[in-house]
């Protein structure tokens, strides 16, 4: 093993520029695959987290909305119909509307304003501060802290003379990739009413349902649709996957990560094969002075593993740098499991390519070194 290690490390040391170049290329490609996966997940959470991570057992939407929250309006009177369905323990209205806000007097930004009572089955858990129980209190998602949305900050609604005060933070509950604000439902009704002065009534966007412990969600959902044919009920997680655009974005990031993974495997295999072939002459020399083909093969494989390891370390550094330097809108984080998976795939591809290239070593005649051209 000592000879194998000496040979492998010696090969890396002899050509430091080439070692750095190959490790750099592998590191860049590995970091790219990992970042695609991580950012894709974060983007999807930012678009649909308010539903995907919601604690309610079922959400009830208008059936004609086809899962598009912005198009859903449920008749308030149907709250009683849903409450009366067997297996339903609690029902509460949910409202969502887009508003323009200024956070602490800053720039005008679009926000998703949710009306959910703190005791509702759909209420977001507060991880810092307190729930919004008062009319002018609000809970915001911690992902928007970079905009100044932190407990104690002031939110001005630009279309109304209304100001809210942030009292708590939640996490993973963003919607539509914009700042997401939760206020008590009655306050939400007041705001929507003021935004639409000609309207007679404000309709909730959905109902949140908490089921009795033994109730089957599918059965209850079916019963709700029978009791009120204009309504459709589904677990919020399932509704999140059906939001407009989610499918396209998820498949885009998935395709990008997959193609990048294939690319990193192919490039690492190709570079490895090229190197093995370039060094056949050196290998022949070492063979001529007594090294067995097995030792040479092991030395090559060890070098491949070291190069991939160097690439993975470099990838971790690159992702760390990107995490520090990227704008808050691009939520890059280092996910060790993803890094390990991609590194293993890269190593496997490189090791296989090296194995194929090393077949020539077995047939190598040590005497070749005496007659081969320089």
């Amino acid at each position, binding site marked *: 093993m000592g000879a194998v290690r000496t040979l492998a490390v010696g090969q890396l040391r002899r050509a430091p520029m080439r070692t750095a170049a190959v490790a750099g*290329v592998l590191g860049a490609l590995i970091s*790219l695959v990992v970042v695609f996966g991580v950012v894709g997940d974060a983007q999807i959470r930012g678009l649909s987290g308010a539903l995907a991570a919601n604690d309610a057992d079922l959400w009830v939407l208008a059936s004609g909305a*086809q899962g*598009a929250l912005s198009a859903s309006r449920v008749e308030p009177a149907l709250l009683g119909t849903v409450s009366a369905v067997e297996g339903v323990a609690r029902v509460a209205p949910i409202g969502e509307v887009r508003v323009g806000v200024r956070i602490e007097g800053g720039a005008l930004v679009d926000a998703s304003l949710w009306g959910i009572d703190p005791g509702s089955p759909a209420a977001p858990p507060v991880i810092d501060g307190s729930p919004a129980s008062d009319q002018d209190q609000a809970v915001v998602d911690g992902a928007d802290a970079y905009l100044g949305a932190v407990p104690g900050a002031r939110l001005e609604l630009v279309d109304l003379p209304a100001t809210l005060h942030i009292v708590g933070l939640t996490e993973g509950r963003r919607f539509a990739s914009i700042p997401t604000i939760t206020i008590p439902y009655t306050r939400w009704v007041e705001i929507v009413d003021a935004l639409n002065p000609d309207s007679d009534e404000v309709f909730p966007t959905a109902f949140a349902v908490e089921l009795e412990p033994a109730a089957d969600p599918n059965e209850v959902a079916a019963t709700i649709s029978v009791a009120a044919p204009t309504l459709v009920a589904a677990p919020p997680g399932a509704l999140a996957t059906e939001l407009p655009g989610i499918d396209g974005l998820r498949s885009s990031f998935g395709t990008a990560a997959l193609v990048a993974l*294939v690319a990193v495997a192919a490039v690492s295999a190709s570079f490895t094969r*090229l190197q093995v072939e370039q060094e056949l002459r050196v290998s022949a020399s070492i063979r001529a002075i007594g090294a067995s083909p097995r030792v040479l093969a092991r030395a090559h494989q060890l070098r491949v593993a070291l190069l991939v390891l160097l690439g993975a370390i470099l990838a971790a550094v690159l992702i760390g740098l990107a995490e520090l330097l990227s704008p808050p809108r*691009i939520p890059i984080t280092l996910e060790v499991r993803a890094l390990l998976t991609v590194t293993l795939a890269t190593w496997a591809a490189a090791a296989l390519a090296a194995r194929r290239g090393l077949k020539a070593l077995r047939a190598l005649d040590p005497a070749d070194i005496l007659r081969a051209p*320089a």
Partner: protein
Amino acid sequence: MRLSTHIVWLELRRSPSRLVRPAVTLTVLAALAMVLASLVDTLDRRSTGVLRAVEADLVVFNVEARQQVLRSRVPRPATIGVGFVDGVHEVGVLSVVPTTVTHQGDQLRATLVGFNARTPAEPVRVLEGRVPTDGEPNIAAIDAALQRTGIEVGDRIILGGSLEVEVVGVIAEAMFLQQPTVWVPPEVWARTGARAFPERGYAETIVGIGLVEVQVGREPAEVAPDIVTELAEEDLDVEVVALRDALAAVPGVSAIRVTFGGLVALALGVVVLVSAGLALLQVDQDRVRNAELRAIGAGPGVLATTLLLRLAVTWALASAAGAVLAAALAAAVPPAVPLAVRPATLATIAAVLGMAVGVGGAAGLRRVSSIDPAEALGEPW
């Protein structure tokens, strides 16, 4: 040049794998870059197709809408007023609302677009049939994305679960927020919209956005402030932006451009680095052979031309194969994956890749010129 071409040609015949192998690696990189760029391009176009389908210079929003097409509610008097502003050639209105389309029992989501025919709000590319004209009851045109689901001209579809209309035409793909579109006269839109958003009420006198075409010879940027000023005198607060800015303001587009675009730019950077590195590795691989050629009289110019020619062949093979791979992948993936390749995107990526290989080759030229013929003997002198 002839000698270099001869050397490359002989090499290609003698050992094609020496040229093909790096071309395969570069093909993978080219395909990666082309697929990524096409993904961003398609995501962007499927979010903004409605605005790309029309030919307008300026877009008029009500101020409260903050440039959001879905939210904009410009009063009818404002769009009429725009038509009288100096420099405005024509104005049309366009409104959107989420809806459902039911066809032969299948229901899918779509965006309903109300528009004025024969104005800048009319879609430009009609693929089949015609577009509806104002006042025509219960007819619609669909975009090519909706046609791909099996709806044809002459079919009847149900909008919003209740209004049956006949399809009279198909326009080029004009998706909005990743959903296909149905184009109807303003009255049909107003009726369907009133059902979807009852708190807004029936709003035939309210339109979504105004689309303005300016007179020939006038700059849109000069006309825009005049429209704002003119309407402000009538107590109508509007915001007028160039079509390009309206495209960027569509929800999700800036996130796609910043996030996905940023990652694709990063990927392109990596591809450029790897391509340049590959070119340098080629130079290293050919060092011994180049020394032999130098030893038997080939000048540095011949070696340099040979290197560049080999890289050009590699690049051409890789670009063509990468484009074929990207197109094949786009054809193979399900329609939900927003991957549609356009020749312009492929050509741009091929050009970027060519530059990267060229940069690597340029760095390699220095190494080629410094090759010592004595290296052919095995030991540097």
